[in-house]
């Protein structure tokens, strides 16, 4: 009884704090593994079975979706893990005839992936990845000054296409008025009023997606060329529209 109460409190704390959620997932990894094993009918191997990752994501989802009215947290999490694994296995059935690159071939230790010719330059790719990571780390640090984390942004991201388009329109306006971006960096405050009047987007929409707008506008300040390059094509599409 006391345990049940404790875990509910932990879950409610994890809803607010990303780090607490990570800790909770780590603490309950044996439970997640056990649930995955029930589904797979064998113990999952960490770092190899996608199912375990899916189960961990489902556990994270359970933290977000749990409320006291839903009964026991662990039962709820177990149910969610099972259904996400079923979803995943159905999805994977489409690729059932695809061979895994990690599958060992013959007697040797080598895997299928290692035998295939790779036309990509591994060094170049690693360098690009490092550069990208550096950019992302810088962005994360800068966002922290606004009190925003990437997980927050993911939770705050517009779900509807219409809302997403509205946010993009506001971004377009900010790109056309670089002083707005400078203001943002200087004051650490999102100029919602100016964005709303300038772009014609509802003030309410921008307020609701403040964190997302902060991340988006920061990406379009100095630096972040790689991330911008990733988004580039889409934003062109908006400009045409």
């Amino acid at each position, binding site marked *: 009884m006391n345990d049940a109460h404790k875990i509910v409190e932990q879950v409610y704390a994890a809803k607010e704090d990303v780090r607490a959620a990570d800790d909770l997932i780590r603490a309950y990894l044996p439970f997640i593994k056990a649930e995955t094993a029930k589904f797979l009918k064998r113990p999952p191997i960490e770092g190899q079975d996608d199912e375990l*990752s899916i189960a961990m994501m489902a556990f*994270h989802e359970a933290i977000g979706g749990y409320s006291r009215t839903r009964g026991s947290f662990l039962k709820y999490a177990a149910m969610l893990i099972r259904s*996400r694994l079923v979803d995943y296995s159905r999805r994977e059935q489409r690729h059932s005839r695809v061979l895994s690159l990690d599958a060992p071939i013959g007697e040797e230790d080598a895997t299928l992936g290692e035998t295939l010719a790779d036309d990509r330059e591994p060094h170049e790719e690693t360098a690009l990845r490092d*550069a990208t990571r550096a950019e992302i780390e810088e962005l994360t640090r800068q966002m922290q000054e606004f009190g925003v984390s*990437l*997980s927050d942004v993911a939770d*705050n991201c*517009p*779900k509807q296409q219409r809302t997403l388009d509205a946010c993009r329109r506001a971004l377009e306006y900010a790109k056309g008025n670089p002083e707005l971006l400078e203001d943002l960096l200087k004051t650490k405050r999102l100029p919602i009023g100016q964005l709303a009047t300038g772009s014609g987007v509802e003030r309410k929409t921008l307020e609701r997606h403040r964190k997302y707008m902060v991340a988006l506008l920061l990406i379009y300040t100095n630096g972040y060329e790689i991330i911008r390059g990733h988004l580039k094509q889409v934003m062109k599409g908006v400009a045409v529209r």
Partner: protein
Amino acid sequence: MSYLVMECHPGYAVLLDEEGRFLKAANLRYETGQTVYDPVLMKETPERQRHTVRWISSGVAAIAACFLLFFGIGYYQNYLQPYSSIYLTINPEVQMELNRQGTVVGLTGTNEDGKTLLEGYDGKGKDKVTVADELIDRAIEMGFLSEGGRVSFSIDSPDEVLFQEYGTELRTKVTEYLDGRITITIEITNHQDGQGQESPENSSSSTPSQPSSSQPESTLPSSSEPSRPAVTPPTSSNATDYDDTDYGPNNDGVTDYTPPVSSSPAYTDTDYGPGNDGDTGYTPPSTSKPPADTDYGPGSDGVTDYTDGDTDYDPDHNDDDNDGDSGYDDDDSDDDSDDDNDPDDDD
């Protein structure tokens, strides 16, 4: 669609898609800065809200179903379910089933002639009076009913009030309808106990204190006037009433002039003792005793009809019987027997 891995957590990874969306996905051994192509995205389920919507919609549906059921039953009870019946007897016998509104929901011929009468006739959905009028018209057309005939409505209703209401309505409306065309007698009986209904004017004319002679004499003018058909002796049997006399050996003890207030007319409705209603009707011929409404002996009702020396002793009531008549006992003994039979014969 390619995704840029922005952040990695043990439970999930934050990805940035090409359209600028930040998404959570299963962390399939990702590293920050990696570009991935086929992530397992976390489902965005606003489950709470969806549940609320479902709950509300199911609640609304349930309430709607209850309303439908409620009104459906109400409609059925009011409009479709037979609630009362009227047995119309001319010679053809027809049963009309009525709903609570008094509208005909079913018509059955209960004898051969009744079936013939109903052939090609649809009275469903019409008011009982309309159907009665139309059936009488048809009966006249088919020759079942002619001048001086008799129509009997036996009403089978669950409560007395409804019986009274239907009886009065049928009597007045049908009389109005046939007025000036044909003269027939209309008879209303209660199907359940065979009790006749008396029209309001009749019951008022047969007030208990009234001398017996006034009643039969009033039938003479009324026999040619269907607006006062209530003087017709309503009886328990729908067949001819000629045997149902209150006189002589055939006397069945049912007095036909019983006001509705006395439910069991049999022997309480005598002219003797406290039950004396002033309506001697039948007693004199059956007994050789002096008329009931005398002031002699045990039959005395305390109203001396003649001692005050006023021969017109009953000016409140019908004048006809008092004209030139000293107004006491002789009327009863002589006139009553004749007059009482008269309405039966005439009608």
